[in-house]
């Protein structure tokens, strides 16, 4: 993001076309209502499952003494991971100066907001006594990574929301007069949220400064959020978690999951909103290359994470690796590693697979695989504790998720999708002013105002 802006685009005719294209799908359409109704009804079922859990306690889940972190915590790690992509796209790539990230930066930011917002709820779903949540703040210990995690997730959510909202302000002002086809309340929301934006150079100057502050601030915060999440595991001495590279291992894994989510959402936005002009094959091609890059880095950390313990084969580690490579979890493990990492790397090296539809399919597989990858990080370790497992029912020895628990997990995913749907449907999903500025700036030599 440059520190100065050429506001000439505001007088350019092309702004009207761009705004018209991007604002066309905004508003309450029938498709939107049907989709939201479907989501709400499904969510109602999940909320009922949660009611059962609150009523009966965690006994309705597959969690027992040995495996006390199951699907919920895996889901939490997944949510945090996916939300990190906001930082990767907007900050890292944006500040380096890659122009192609401009139209997709807001998509990445929407994912960041939705997933970070729900991540907190996911943790609550793992609590047998959710009404004791305030105790974290009343009696929390600064020494505990759990408190750091709560702090950093909250901070990241606020930063992501600001990073979504602030660049949206000029768009809201541009859109104000152009969304006559939408209900009144939405128009007045635009009015309020655009905080009297008048496109004055002073306003642009402040805005660019704020965005720059946020872009810089969010990098350490995003690193912290996922590193601290990895520490929840790595500060223990348990096989599979007792690792010094868990921070970067989680972080790079997060970029893989997040990039896959961005590709999926880009594809939906492009096809449903007919925005092929803005989300072009080129953007998908670049995302494909990005995925190859982050996946190779993640693969590198995977090799580190498994090769070193496998070379030393300390007893507990050996049991753990045995379970993953050839034991109980082998099928899932290899499926996840192949479909979520190795195959995508190979396929996306070819230009054909970086076209929108093929990469959308690959991205979907990767995102699902990355959810299961988190399950493989969380569960197998607990099934092999250091002390002998004895005097407990056989069913406690392994983790068997229940329907209730699966429904609650589905519910959190539905909620994230709802947030995304609302943001995408009520506000321009592609930054109008940035795209217009880019377009006029590169094609015309407008005098600076």
């Amino acid at each position: 993001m440059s520190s100065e802006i050429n506001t000439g685009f505001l007088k350019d005719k092309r702004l009207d076309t761009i705004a018209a294209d991007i604002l066309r799908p905004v508003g309450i359409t029938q498709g939107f209502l049907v989709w939201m109704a479907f989501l709400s009804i499904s969510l109602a079922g999940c909320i009922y499952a949660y009611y059962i859990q609150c009523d009966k306690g965690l006994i309705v889940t597959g969690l027992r003494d040995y495996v006390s972190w199951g699907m919920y915590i895996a889901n939490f790690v997944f949510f945090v991971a996916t939300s990190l992509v906001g930082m990767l796209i907007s900050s890292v790539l944006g500040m380096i100066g890659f122009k192609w990230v401009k139209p997709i930066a807001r998509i990445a930011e929407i994912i960041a907001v939705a997933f970070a917002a729900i991540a907190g709820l996911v943790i609550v779903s793992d609590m047998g006594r959710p009404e004791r949540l305030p105790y974290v703040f009343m009696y929390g210990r600064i020494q505990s990574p759990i408190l750091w995690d709560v702090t950093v997730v909250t901070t990241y959510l606020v930063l992501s929301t600001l990073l979504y909202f602030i660049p949206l302000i000029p768009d809201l002002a541009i859109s104000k007069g152009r969304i006559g086809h939408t209900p009144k309340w939405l128009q007045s929301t635009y009015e309020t949220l655009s905080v009297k934006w008048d496109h004055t150079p002073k306003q642009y100057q402040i805005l660019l400064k704020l965005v720059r502050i946020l872009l810089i601030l969010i990098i350490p915060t995003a690193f912290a959020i996922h590193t601290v999440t990895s520490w929840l595991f790595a500060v223990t001495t348990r096989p599979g978690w007792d690792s010094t590279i868990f921070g970067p291992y989680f972080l790079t894994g997060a970029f893989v999951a997040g990039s896959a989510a961005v590709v999926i959402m880009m594809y939906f936005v492009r096809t449903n909103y007919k925005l092929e002009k803005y989300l072009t094959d080129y953007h998908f091609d670049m995302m494909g290359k990005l995925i190859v890059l982050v996946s190779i880095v993640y693969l590198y950390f995977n090799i580190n994470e498994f090769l070193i313990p496998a070379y030393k084969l300390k007893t507990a580690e050996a049991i753990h690796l045995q379970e993953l490579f050839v034991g109980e979890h082998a099928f899932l493990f290899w499926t996840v590693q192949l479909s979520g990492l190795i195959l995508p790397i190979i396929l996306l090296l070819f230009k054909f697979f970086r076209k929108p539809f093929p990469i959308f399919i690959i991205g979907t597989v990767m995102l699902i695989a990355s959810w299961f990858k988190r399950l493989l990080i969380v569960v197998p370790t607990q099934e092999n504790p250091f002390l002998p497992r004895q005097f407990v029912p056989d069913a406690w020895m392994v983790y068997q998720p229940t329907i209730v628990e699966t429904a609650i997990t589905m519910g959190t995913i539905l909620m994230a999708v709802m947030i995304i749907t609302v943001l995408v449907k009520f506000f321009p999903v592609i930054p109008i002013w940035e795209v217009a500025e880019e377009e006029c700036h590169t094609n015309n030599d407008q005098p600076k105002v």
Partner: protein
Amino acid sequence: MKKRYLSLLLIFVITLRLSAQQEWIVPAENLSKLSTFAFSDSTRKAGMNLYITNCKSCHGDPGKNNVIKLVPPPVDPASDRMQANTDGGMYFKISQGRMPMPTFKNILSPTDVWVVISYLRSFNPKYAQEVAPKVLTGAMVQNVKIHLNWLKEKDQVQAVVSGTKDKIEQPVAGAEVKLFAKRYFGNLLIDEARNTDAQGQVLFNFPKDLPGDSTGYVQLLARLSDEEAYGESKSETTLQIGVPTYKPPLNEQRAMWNVVQKTPIWLLLSYTFTVLAVWAFIFYVLFQIRAISKSGLSKDQDTID
């Protein structure tokens, strides 16, 4: 294929060795030893308490066969194998122990061991106790008392044993006395077992470097070995004869494992500073949104649109 046979053979040999090891032979003279008192509900109850603190962690709940996994495995007290022991056999095994079964002779007094046995026997409906006939040794002293003194110049602890005989208080001569220092996990034998002289006195050499509490106090315990003859006779005294040792409790200083009020300073500072710094920027950004709103057209005429 060859390998498989080899490992089968190995397993066979190991099993043989293990089962060979399982014979635990009690020397013949110990087999017929008997308790001097009759087992009753109160001894069984006291025995249960001793069992819970000292034995249950390995032997489990009697009758449930939930012994801990050790090689060789502990024996369930209610099992036939346990009950097949004679009283004397049990007494010997509990006092002596055999890896991994610990030695209890310094931890439990002879009376305690019999009390535990009375509890173990309560799981055997067929058991009928045989009580030892009263032995007429020790010249019939009663009310045996042991008095402990610290002889500072010689680094010795003196035990004076006396009892009443024919209603007259007099020294007990020729009795074996053991001196123990109480430690966290059981009693530590000091010096060695020694016999009283004609004055009923006995001297124990006391080590100079035995850790005491923060002011040097050590709890001492003296016991006559021959409880059958003298009855239960132990004496506990606390003397200031150890090396003062002060081990600060682990939660005294600031530490990662301590309560939040005792967070390590470096952590407190890093956490607070980081959080404050980041949130200062966040609030700055929020206030600047107001600034944006204020520099709209109404104030600023330098406009373009």
